[in-house]
């Protein structure tokens, strides 16, 4: 993986957002509701085109060379991106074929095992509880061994036990960069190498090392005081 | 991007149309079969042809929009379709008058050109609800261009299909002036056609200039009064923007 650089600015939702992230590092994105955190992730995932500025993901400029980054990104948004009528396994098979995953069978079994979904894998997705659904979505995100993980509040709907499982699945790994949107300030900041705090207007309140930003300051940003 | 109001174009359009209609009334002979009423031909056919060519022009502009991603082509395609739809209304009205006068009915279903034109017209009328149904401006522009390309390909195919359909059932009863116009008629027709094409282009240019200055005005207002000022204008007409970068 090459060095990862993203500058981005847009007038309306996000403006003047500039940051860089090296391979293997983690960036946590915090900000109040409507600050454009999810928009930022969707842009990085090549799902939304930037309206201005320069964005480079995995060495590919967006939107011009988005195809070069596709298939190397694992995106976990608010929607699980799974078909409700298909089983968990069929959904994973579908995504594996889209991504051209080589040893799909082994990889799927391993992920389902680790996510604790092996027994539910043959059930249609519509029967799953919200927490199970989130785990299935995480399996989909990781299936093709992405070099960049984009996680939008990965712990939603998860109980304590599941959180541990998920943290292990989505945790730091060799050569895998992560961008995490979270509302859990303490946990999020402790996890991350760098932090990006957005204001409600979509501009940057803080960008830099996560260790410098105290949870208190972060809270102040969220509440619009800083 | 900004569009300026044309100066010479309107003058040319007026000159050509005046000369054209002067020729129609004082120089060109009456048609042997249809008499005086046939003279509406010099109004009706140029209008209809310009409308159809305008749709094709819009398709080309839409292709340029999709290829370049430059919103100015979307504005151009929108204006072309808009003016052509207005020309389409005029063509249908003049066509109906002609039909009433020469065939005794306001509308004749077995005249293939009329029917094809009506279908094309109806298709382009859906351009407005389509734009209206998509809120995101950028996506609206892109989808509108895809529509304009599809519809542009549709225009000739539709004429082929309808013409075939009609000749199978009814041999062409109304042998109009086809099969060689007399030279005087042809010359007059060409002058009228050129005038109408110039009028089409003039109207497009004025519409573009109006859009462009309206957009400039609202930008200035926003600069003066802050971001909160509501932007005037319709939700479906594309807004010309300044070139970025």
């Amino acid at each position: 993986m090459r060095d990862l650089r993203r500058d981005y600015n847009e007038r309306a939702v996000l403006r003047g957002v500039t940051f860089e992230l090296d391979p293997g590092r983690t960036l946590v994105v915090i900000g109040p509701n409507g600050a454009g955190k999810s928009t930022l992730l969707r842009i990085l995932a090549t799902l939304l085109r930037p309206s201005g500025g320069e964005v480079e993901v995995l060495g590919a400029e967006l939107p011009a060379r988005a195809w070069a980054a596709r298939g190397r990104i694992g995106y976990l948004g608010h929607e699980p991106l799974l078909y409700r009528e298909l089983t968990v396994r069929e959904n994973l098979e579908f995504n594996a074929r889209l991504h051209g995953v080589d040893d799909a069978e082994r990889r799927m079994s391993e992920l389902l095992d680790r996510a604790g979904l092996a027994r539910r894998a043959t059930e249609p997705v519509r029967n799953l509880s919200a927490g199970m659904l989130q785990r299935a979505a995480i399996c989909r995100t990781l299936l093709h061994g992405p070099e960049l993980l984009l996680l939008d509040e990965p712990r939603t709907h998860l109980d304590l036990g599941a959180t541990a499982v998920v943290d292990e699945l989505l945790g730091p790994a060799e050569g895998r960069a992560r961008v995490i949107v979270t509302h859990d300030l303490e946990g999020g900041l402790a996890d991350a190498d760098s932090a990006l705090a957005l204001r409600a207007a979509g501009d940057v309140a803080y960008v830099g090392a996560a260790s410098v930003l105290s949870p208190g300051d972060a809270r102040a940003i969220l509440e619009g005081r800083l | 991007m900004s569009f300026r109001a044309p100066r010479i174009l309107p003058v040319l359009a007026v000159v050509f149309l005046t000369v054209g209609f002067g020729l129609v009334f004082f120089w060109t002979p009456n048609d042997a079969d249809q008499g005086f009423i046939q003279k509406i031909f010099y109004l009706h056919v140029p209008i209809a042809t310009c409308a159809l060519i305008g749709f094709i022009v819009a398709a080309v502009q839409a292709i340029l929009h999709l290829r370049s991603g430059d919103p100015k082509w979307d504005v151009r395609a929108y204006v072309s379709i808009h003016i052509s739809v207005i020309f389409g209304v005029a063509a249908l009205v003049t066509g109906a008058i002609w039909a009433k006068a020469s065939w005794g009915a306001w509308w004749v279903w077995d005249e293939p050109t009329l029917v094809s034109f009506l279908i094309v017209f109806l298709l382009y009328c859906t351009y407005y609800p389509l734009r209206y149904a998509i809120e995101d401006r950028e996506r609206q522009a892109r989808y509108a261009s895809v529509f304009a390309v599809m519809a542009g390909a549709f225009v000739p195919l539709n004429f082929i299909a309808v013409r075939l359909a009609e000749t199978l059932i009814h041999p062409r009863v109304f042998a109009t002036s086809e099969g060689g116009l007399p030279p005087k008629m042809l010359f007059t027709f060409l002058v009228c056609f050129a005038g109408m094409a110039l009028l089409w282009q003039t109207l497009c240019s004025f519409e573009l200039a109006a859009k462009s200055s309206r957009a400039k005005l609202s930008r200035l207002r926003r600069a003066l009064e802050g971001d909160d000022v509501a932007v005037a204008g319709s939700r479906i007409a594309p807004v010309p923007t300044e070139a970025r970068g």
Partner: protein
Amino acid sequence: MSPFRAILAKDLRTELRTLESVPAMALFSATTFVLFRFGLDRDSLEGSLAAGVLLATVLFAAILAINRVFVTEREQGGFDAIRLAPVDATSLYLAKVCVLMLYLAAFELIAVPVFAIFFLDTAGGLPALAGVLLLADLGLAAIGALVSSIAVNSRARDLIAPLLLLPLLVPVMIGAAGAAEPLLLADGPSYEGFGKWIAVLALYDVVFCLVGYAVYDFLLED
């Protein structure tokens, strides 16, 4: 071609499981035929009236399927999942054209025999009619996949699709009706003008498959 096959297989599997499209189309056509039977008050139909009844029913049944063909992609994140993968947008378009073709063909396997039982005295024209319908299906599918993709991303999905489809499909209907009319004559099929109509349908299919192939990329971006 693997993404193409994956999407196609996924759609067919979902359809087999939910039985959402084809049975609804078949039911719709049966009801429509009953309506025509009562409305026209005739024991049998032939020629242009028969072709009109059959093709109008096919057209409106097709709109049912076209309206639905992208709904799962939109509502269950299929568009996003596909765009996250290194997949050409045209694979999606071609897969959906095939899905619609298969739905329409399956539907016609049910609807045409019902139509023949209800209205026709002779079945001699049916083999050639099948060919005409297949060509018409390709046109319906090529246009349908494009329009459906536009409509599903707009606010008034159920309104926009038929509004755009009906005028765009006029040439398909004219071509198919023109070819079907002599096939459905009471005293056996005639092939007068058949080649000309087939040529119109084929030309339409080719042009709109190419247009769809060329512009589909732009419908998938966001």
